[in-house]
């Protein structure tokens, strides 16, 4: 029972973050400067989300070739930069990561 209360509350706060701004912003015109600043949202948020997962392993900095996350991420960044192709980047990055893991390197 406690678990379902927890899930219900998680739903409430998640929806409470996603929906109200959408409803409010749709009603009013945002100032031009705010609109311009918001263009940086995807790059900033997604970079901030990934960086610690790549560079910190088991609570420690890991900047080495034995960090499969780091090696495969650098590879994926290069593929994304050269190809600008999302699916290719994902597949190539996952392949390299899997190879590192299977070979026991990472």
């Amino acid at each position: 029972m406690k678990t379902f209360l927890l899930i219900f509350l998680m739903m409430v706060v998640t929806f409470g973050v996603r929906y109200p701004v959408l409803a409010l912003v749709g009603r009013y015109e945002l100032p031009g400067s705010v609109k311009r600043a918001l263009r940086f949202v995807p790059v900033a948020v997604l970079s901030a989300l990934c960086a610690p997962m790549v560079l910190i392993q088991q609570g420690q900095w890991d900047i080495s070739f034995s960090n499969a996350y780091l090696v495969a991420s650098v590879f994926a960044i290069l593929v994304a930069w050269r190809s600008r192709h999302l699916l290719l980047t994902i597949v190539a990055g996952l392949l390299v990561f899997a190879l590192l893991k299977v070979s026991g390197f990472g």
Partner: protein
Amino acid sequence: MKSLLKRREFLHGARDTVPMIVGAIPFGILFGALATSVGLSFYATMAMSLFVFAGSSQFVAATLIGQGAGVAVIVMTTFFVNLRHALYSASLGPAFKGLKQTWLLPLGFFLTDETYAVVIKRVNESPDGKDHHWYCLGSSLAMYANWQICTVIGFTAGNALEDLSGWGLEFAMIVTFIGIVVPLITRFPMLIAAGVAVIVALLSRNMAHNLGLIVASVAGVAAGYGAEVYAERKNYEATGS
């Protein structure tokens, strides 16, 4: 005729989301496997995927349940982990201006990192489009269906395979976001935004409740915008006009 265009926009949104789904599959499976390993029942696991529908926070919640954390802590953490969606909403809002609540409620509920990334790209490419909400709904439902299926697979596989969580399946999410972010970095201010976000995220990673993510995001946005304004001003002075 009009409804045909809407249907096309809906299907287009779903189709453009396919690469995101490739990245989300391992992550969804990982969540299902983690949920069963911390002792969540099948119904509780499915309820979380069906009603919360927020990958990274479900992941964090399952981890915290495993550590025996209390309801209040988990709900608070969920709130902070998902706070970035408010930025997404603010960014997408203008494209959905004037839509009825019957549209905004589901679009809000279904908003994820992946759908946001796909839809904002579409909005930027065709700012005058009238059917972005159909595109967004197509993307949302594709993500939603996939997430439910992957949760079931992960829950089942998690029971069968002992240490699925040691495979590093979360890398799929990282590589998806790399694929989204890198092509967006076409101008110097974008690079500044990414660089500052990365540095601040690393420095603030030990803040409670994942608050560092929000601090880093806001810092990145501010730095990017600041760099853009600065470059414009310099340009303005250089041309002397």
